[in-house]
C-alpha cells in the first residue's frame, strides 16, 4: 500500500517537472521569437510603405513611394552590384585558397599544427580591429604595403583611397581574415577520407594531382557546398569592413554595399521606410541563394 503511494507521488512529481519545463521553455521561446523576430519582420514590411522615423515617432503612409525611390536611385544599383561582386569574389577565394591550404597542410609531415594555428589566427580576431590594422597597411603615403611595392620599383597606389582599388582592398582584407575558416572545414573533411582510398591510388601509382582531382576534390564536395553557401549568405550582409575601412563608403561610393546603404538611409537620413525596402531585397537575395543551394544539394544526392 505504502509502496504504491510513494510510486504515485514520484510519478506525479516527474509529470509536474516535465510539464513545468516544457511550458516555461515554450512560453519563453514564444515570447522571444514573436517579439524579436516575427513581429519585426512584419513591422518592417509594413514600414516599407510608410515614411517611418522612430526617432521622431513618425509613421505616415506613402504607398509604394519608398520602392519607387529605391529603384530610381543609381546608388542602389551600385550597392547591389558591389555586394554581388564582393560576395562572389570573396566566396570564390575562400573556397579555392582554403582548399589549397588544407590539401597542402594535410600532406605535411612536420609543422602541420603550426600552420593550422597560424592560418586560423585572423578568424578569431575582431573584424573592427583587423580593419584598423589593414587601413594602416593600405595607407597611401606612409603605409607599409606601398613602401614594400616601392622597393620592387612599383609606384605607390591609392588602395582604399582609390575608387577602383577600394573594393578590392576590402576583399583582400576579408579573404585574409576568412581563409582559415574554410581551411579548418576542409582539413576535417580530409581527415574523414578513408585511408584505403589513398592506398588503392598508391597501388595505381597515382600522382598528387590525380589524387587531388579523383579522390580529394570529389570527397570534399559537401564541405565545398557548405563553405560556399555560408560564405554567400554572410558576404551579402557586408557592412563592418565598409564602415571601418572607408570614409562614407569610399571615393565615389566605391565600396558601398546593400547593408551600408540600409544603415545610411536609416541612421543618417532617418528614412527607415526606404531602408526597409533594401532589407527585403537582401532577404530576397538570401532566399534565392538558399533555394539554389537546396536544388544543388538534391541534385548531388540523386
Amino acid at each position: 500500500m505504502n509502496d504504491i503511494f510513494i510510486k504515485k507521488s514520484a510519478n506525479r512529481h516527474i509529470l509536474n517537472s516535465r510539464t513545468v519545463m516544457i511550458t516555461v521553455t515554450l512560453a519563453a521561446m514564444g515570447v522571444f521569437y514573436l517579439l524579436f523576430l516575427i513581429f519585426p519582420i512584419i513591422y518592417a514590411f509594413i514600414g516599407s510603405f510608410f515614411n517611418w522615423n522612430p526617432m521622431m515617432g513618425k509613421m505616415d503612409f506613402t504607398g509604394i513611394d519608398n520602392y519607387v525611390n529605391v529603384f530610381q536611385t543609381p546608388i542602389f544599383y551600385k550597392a547591389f552590384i558591389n555586394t554581388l561582386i564582393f560576395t562572389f569574389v570573396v566566396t570564390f577565394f575562400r573556397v579555392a585558397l582554403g582548399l589549397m591550404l588544407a590539401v597542402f597542410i594535410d600532406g605535411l609531415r612536420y609543422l602541420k599544427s603550426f600552420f593550422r594555428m597560424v592560418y586560423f589566427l585572423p578568424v578569431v580576431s575582431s573584424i573592427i580591429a583587423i580593419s584598423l590594422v589593414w587601413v594602416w597597411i593600405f595607407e597611401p603615403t606612409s603605409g607599409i604595403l606601398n613602401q614594400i611595392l616601392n622597393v620592387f620599383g612599383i609606384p605607390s597606389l591609392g588602395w582604399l583611397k582609390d575608387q577602383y582599388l577600394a573594393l578590392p582592398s576590402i576583399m583582400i582584407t576579408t579573404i585574409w581574415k576568412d581563409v582559415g575558416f574554410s581551411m579548418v572545414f576542409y582539413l576535417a573533411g580530409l581527415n574523414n577520407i578513408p585511408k584505403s582510398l589513398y592506398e588503392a591510388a598508391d597501388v595505381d601509382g597515382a600522382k598528387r594531382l590525380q589524387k587531388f582531382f579523383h579522390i580529394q576534390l570529389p570527397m570534399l564536395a559537401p564541405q565545398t557546398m557548405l563553405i560556399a553557401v555560408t560564405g554567400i549568405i554572410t558576404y551579402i550582409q557586408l557592412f563592418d569592413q565598409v564602415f571601418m575601412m572607408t570614409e562614407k563608403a569610399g571615393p565615389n561610393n566605391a565600396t558601398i554595399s546593400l547593408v551600408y546603404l540600409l544603415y545610411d538611409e536609416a541612421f543618417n537620413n532617418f528614412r527607415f521606410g526606404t531602408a526597409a525596402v533594401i532589407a527585403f531585397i537582401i532577404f530576397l537575395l538570401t532566399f534565392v541563394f538558399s533555394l539554389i543551394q537546396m536544388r544543388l544539394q538534391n541534385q548531388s544526392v540523386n
Partner: protein
Amino acid sequence: MLTEVNEGGEDRMAKKKDYAVTIFIYILLGLGALLMMFPFFWMILSSFKTQSEIVAFPPTFFPEAPTFKNYVDVWVNVNFKQFFVNSMFVLIVKTVIALYTSILAGYVFSKLRFRGRNVIFVLVLATMMVPYPVTILSLYQEMFWFKWIDSYNALIWTAMFNTFGIFVMKQFISGIPDSLIESARIDGAGEFRILHRIIMPLIKSALSALAIFICLGVWNDFLWPFLVLNSDSKYTIPVGLALFKGRYYTDYAKQLTGATITVLPVLVIYFFLQKQFIEGIALSGIKE
C-alpha cells in the same frame, strides 16, 4: 633488362620530383604564414612606437624607443578600461543566458515528447534563414518603445535565445541514450535535476565548444551595440574602437593600440585552447 633500369631511373626521378614539390609546398605555406602573422606583429610593434615614428620614412620594424604611452593614453584617457569592463560584463551575461537556454531548449526538443514538437522545432530552425538586416530596423523601433536605447537590456534580451545554439545542443543531447534518463526518472529525479546532473556533465566538450563560439560572437559583435549604445560610459570594445576612426582619425598609434587591446586577449586564449576554438568554429558546419 634495359626496361628495368629505365623504370628504376624513372622511379628515382619521380621521388626527386616529389621531394622538390614538398619543399615548394613548405616555402609557399611559410610565405603564407608570414603574410598571416605580419599584420599582427605590425599592429603590436606599432603600438609601442610614438606617432612620429609610426609615420616616419623609411619605416622601422622594431620600435626605436619602446613606449607604453599609447597604452596609458588609450586605457585611461580614452577610457578603454571602461570599454573592457563593459565588454566583459556583456560577454558573461549574454553567454551564460544563451548557453543555458540552448541546453534547456535542446533537451526539451530532443528528450521530452509533446504534441507539435517537430513542427515547432522546424519553425525555430527556419528563423536562421532570416538575415539580420530584415529585423534590425524594427528591433531598433522596439528598443525605442521599450526605452531600452542606451541600455544593456537591448543587447541581452534580444539575444536570450540562440537558434544555432539550440540546434547544436539538440544534436548533442539526442546522442545521449534514453535509458540513462529513464533510470533517473524511475529514481524520482525531476527533469531539471536530470538536465543539470546528468545531461550537462555528459556534453561538457560540446558545451565548451558552443561557449567559445558564442563568446567570440559577443566579443566581436559590432553593428547592434553600435546602434543602440549612445554614451561613452556604456560602449563595448568594438564600439569604442570604431569611434577611434572618427575622433583620432590620423592617430594611428592610438588606433593600433586599441586594436591590440581588442585582439591580443583573444589570441592568447586561442593559443592555449586551440582545439576548443577550432571545434567551436567548426560547429557551424553541423547539419542534420
